[in-house]
Structures are given as C-alpha cells and as structure tokens.
C-alpha cells in the first residue's frame, strides 16, 4: 500500500510556477532627454560664444569729444564626439533549443529572444549616454578607462567656484554648523552673478533629500506657524523618503527639485582567487566603470551570498580593483564575480543648474555621424552568418553632451 511520497522521486509533481526578474525593466532616464539634440556634420563639433558686459557710458565735459569704446569679440570652442557600441552573437544551436524561462515546455522563439536582448542592448547604450550627461553635470568631466586600453577624458572646465565641497562642520548630514538653505542660496546667487541664469533644476538622490527633509532649520521654516503650510509630508510624496519634494522646491524657489535614484551597474568576473581577510587587490576581467569610492559587491555564486567593500583604487593596466578592507570570505576565480552599482547622481551631490541663459540652452547633445550611411543617433542592426548559421545583434551611437554655459551649473558636495 503506497503511503507518502519518498519512493519514486521522478513521480513527484513539481511545477514551475513563475519567472521572477530583477533589474530587467527599461530604465527611466532623465538627463539624456532634458537637453535638445543637434546633428553635427562631423565628429568634430565647433561652436562659438560671446560674453557681453554690463558696461556704462562715461561722463564727459560738454564740448569734449566722446571717448572711444570697442565691440566685443568672440571665442571659439570645439569638441570631439564619443563613439560607443557593442554586439552579441547567437548561434543556431542556442536559438533553436532554448526553453522559455518560467515555463516547463515552451520554446522561447528566436525572434522573441533576439528582440529582448536587443532591447537590453539599447538600454545599455542609453545608460552610457545618460552616464555622460550625469558626469558632465556632477563632476564637470568624463573619465573612462576600458580593459582594452581605451582611455577617455573630457573636461568641461567648470569654474572651481561652481563646484563646492563642504567642510565637515558644514556637511548636510550632521555638520554642527550646517546651513542647507544658505548653501543653496549661495549657489543660486553664484550662477546669477556669473552668467545671469536662474536656477531651474536641482537634482539629488533620495539620500540627500533625506538630509534636507530632516534638517531642523528647514523643518522649522515649513511649519504652519512660521512660513510654510505644514504640507511637507503630504501630496506627491517621494517613494523612499516620504516627503513632498515640491514643497522643498517651493521653499528653495527651485522650479524642479528632482529626486533621481536611477542606477547603473558594472560587473566583472574574478580572474584570480580572493583569499578571505587577505586579498585587497582584486583581479577582475574588466575594470571599466569601477570607481574609487564606489561599493564593490563580492558575489559567491555557489553559496548565493554577497558582501560589500569600498573601492580604494582602480588599476586599469593591472586589471585590478583594490578595496580598502579584504572581504571576509574567499572567492573563486572564473566562478564568482564582483559588481558595483552606482547612482547616476552620486549620493553626496546636490546639483543645480539653469536650463537656459539668455534664452539659449546651457547644454546640448551633439549627435555625430557614423557608419557608411552617415547615421545619426542610436542604431540597432543585425548581421546573419551563413555557415555556421548564427546572428549578431548590435547597438551603436555617437555623440557628446556639451556644456555650452560652464557657469550655469553649481554642484555642492554635501557629505
């Protein structure tokens, strides 16, 4: 008489019930859509600028000849566009024999698979574009080193007075003399004094929003009994911090206080074993996009666990990411991997900028032509191999965000 289940494991009914995904949705990218795009006829982009003055006509005695003055000149600027692309290959064996995830019996159609991977490549390309905008606004420069030897550095030459780093006592999280409102007003005045622009956008992450929303001085100001309406915690609230950024934007007189938490990820396989409590120079397959100050996450694939350490150095030539403290677990080469997730806007920056100065955009995205047919903008395509049968899918784009008004941006390193 059969009782229980243990005898014949193959007869035990186990049904695949679903497919759970994480970080596969298309990103909500903000910056790459904020500024207008222009098509440049070549990869070298040129533009000119003129800085006027607020000069005044001098007094002269009656009967005297008028003193001579002179018109303003012109400045020439140029930039070279960046090019990024990648491809993925699938052979017929792979495409013909893949099960659809989350199902037990269904074949995942080749076209569906390719479309999904192509969408993923497009997301990756757009994140690179967004990353360039974020770097331009937050750091005033783009630096990039790839494992293959490609090194790239674009300096937007933002004046140092527009990139302020607060000293310990003035830092927003717990500085004893912190003055968040004062720092922001100083920034707004600096931009107005230097280029006549009015701050229209302020960007920060939810972490900085938390500092602002928990600041005693700002909380006092927003009370009903003083200046505000007591509505900081009502209305269109932020999903993580639970306060209404519009109320803060209104207090600060910034039209768009945007809380931007979108992230990008760099991931790389370990190429040498990591010994617990010992190895700090971590050899990886690809050091591109790992950054000093970022958090390196060690993934133990077989155990399904991870731990985090802070990156203290990145050695592009040696292919190493150095962490300040060795991880407490050992990791295997070729099996385990490391990753770094980072927000486009760093967790310690408050970025303000005027979108226009004298009616002109402060930044533009210049698309440059590439390919035999002089294409502009993001392009995806496929290439079929005849023997053995296979298909490449590819994404490419070329262009550069350019900061035309360098002094219309003001960044505060708040922590």
């Amino acid at each position: 008489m059969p009782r229980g289940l243990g005898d014949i494991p193959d007869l035990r009914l186990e049904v695949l019930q679903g497919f759970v995904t994480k970080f596969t949705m298309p990103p909500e990218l903000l910056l790459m859509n904020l500024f207008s795009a222009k098509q440049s006829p070549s990869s070298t982009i040129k533009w000119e600028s003129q800085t006027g003055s607020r000069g005044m006509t001098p007094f002269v005695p009656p009967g005297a000849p008028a003193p001579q003055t002179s018109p303003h000149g012109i400045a020439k600027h140029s930039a070279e566009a960046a090019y990024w692309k990648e491809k993925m290959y699938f052979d017929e064996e792979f495409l013909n024999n893949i099960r659809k995830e989350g199902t037990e019996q269904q074949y995942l159609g080749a076209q569906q698979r390719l479309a999904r991977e192509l969408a993923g490549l497009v997301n990756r390309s757009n994140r690179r574009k967004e990353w360039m905008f974020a770097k331009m606004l937050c750091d005033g420069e783009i630096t990039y080193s790839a494992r293959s030897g490609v090194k790239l550095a674009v300096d937007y030459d933002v004046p140092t007075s527009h990139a302020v780093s607060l000293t310990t006592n003035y830092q927003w999280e717990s500085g004893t003399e912190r003055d968040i409102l004062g720092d922001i007003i100083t920034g707004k005045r600096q931009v107005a004094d230097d280029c006549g622009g009015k701050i229209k956008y302020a960007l920060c992450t939810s972490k900085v929003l938390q500092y602002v929303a928990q600041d005693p001085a700002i909380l006092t100001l927003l009370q009903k009994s003083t200046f505000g309406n007591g509505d900081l915690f009502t209305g269109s609230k932020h999903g993580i911090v639970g306060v209404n950024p519009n109320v803060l934007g209104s207090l600060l007189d910034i039209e768009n206080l945007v809380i931007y938490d979108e992230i990008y990820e760099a991931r790389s396989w370990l190429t040498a074993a990591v010994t617990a409590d010992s190895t700090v120079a971590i050899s990886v397959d690809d050091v591109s996009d790992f950054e000093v100050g970022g958090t390196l996450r060690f993934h133990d694939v077989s155990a399904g666990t991870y731990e985090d350490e802070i990156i203290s150095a990145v050695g592009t030539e040696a292919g190493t990411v150095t962490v300040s403290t060795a991880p407490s677990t050992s990791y295997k080469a070729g099996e385990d991997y490391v990753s770094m997730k980072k927000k486009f806007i760093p967790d310690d920056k408050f970025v303000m900028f005027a979108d226009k100065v004298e009616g002109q955009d402060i930044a533009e995205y210049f698309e440059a032509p590439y390919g035999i047919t002089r294409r502009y903008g993001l392009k995806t395509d496929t290439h079929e191999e005849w023997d053995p049968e296979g298909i490449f899918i590819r994404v490419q784009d070329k262009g550069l965000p350019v900061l035309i008004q360098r002094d219309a941006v003001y960044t505060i390193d708040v922590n």
Partner: protein
Amino acid sequence: MTVGRDIPSVLFGAQDEYKHLYESDPRAALKLPVTLQSGFGQLKMGTALAVNTSSSSTNYNKTIPYDQSAKTGAEASADARAYIVQDGAGTTSVSVTIDDSYKFIVGDEIQAIDADTTSADLGAITDIDRTTYPTRAVITTTNALSSGYTTANFAYVALKGSDACVGILEKSVNTGTGANAQGAIATMVLGNAIFRSGMLTNVDSAARTDLSASTYGAFTYMK
C-alpha cells in the same frame, strides 16, 4: 529538477551567467571539430583542452580537459583529475570516487600526480571495478601506485596527455558524469584569436607556452 525534500524549506538557486569568450572576430579564429571524452561533466566555454595520448585505448586522440600546473588541491577547476580516496600502497590498485572512475576506460594510460612528488606513470588501465565497494571504484593499473601518493597530499590520477594543452574549447558542452556519460562533440580553437582572459579556464602559463599564446592586459591571444 527533482528537489526531493520532505521537510518544509526554501531553496534559492544561483544565477549562472553566459560567458563572452572572444574579443576578436570569432569568424577569424582557426578552429577544428573535436570529440570530448566522456565523464568530465560540464565543460565551460574557454576551458583549456588536452588530448588523450593513450595509444592503445579506444579513447586515443579524444580531447580531454587540460590539467593545470598548480597542484595544491585547492584548484577550483580540476576537471581533468580523479583524486585518490585511499593512499597508495605499492600495489596496482588505485581507488577514486565512482563518478570520477567514468573519466577512464580500460586501456587508458594514467599517471599519478601530487603537489610535491614527481608524476609516476601507472601505465594502461587493465580493469575498473565499480561494484565491490559502494563508496569507491578501484582501478587496476599496469604499474603500482607507490605509498608516497596520499590523500593528505591531494594525490590524483589523470590521463596521459592531460598535462599538454592543445587548444581552447569554443562552446560549453556537457560530457556527462557517471554511468550515463556520453562525451560531447564541440569545436576547439587552435589559433588566431584574442580571448578575454577572465573567460578562460585553466589557461595557465604552462598552457600558454604549449599554445604559443601570450597575454596583453586583460587579454590572452593566440597568433
């Protein structure tokens, strides 16, 4: 997958990523179709391969995983090895796990290796007994396994030829494990390629010498 548990529990699996091997154009690589000997389990794309040089075996000239030079016993990818489970006793009996015993057939020539003893040629396998003991298989060899080879020293046996790398496996294949292992057919890269070093398995400095390969930064290239 039959999990087979009778106690309330939750299992979380780990994600196995696809590898990207080539940095150069895969179409330009020089490659040959090969047959992989059975019993070595799943071999990942980029694994260093060797050739079975046991001339009297029917496995002669089949490709097998290359055995890396490091022999500490802690190596993560030791597909080529069958670690002994009983110390050598100066007899022609070599005990390995039953699964590992399917890496060999009668006629294959094997050698004994450990971290600090010169490798010993055990000659051709004359018998493999997988039934006497439920815990191990006993391989009978032509030459005796000396008592210097011990489990404490991570001694193992490997096929003749496994210490000479001949190429790089181009795609992941499953050669099977245990009684039902069938081997696999695949393509092996012989040259004219740049690989991402991190995607290669067991391509150590001795393997690069065998392949006339070199490294540049994070890449390994074969001309």
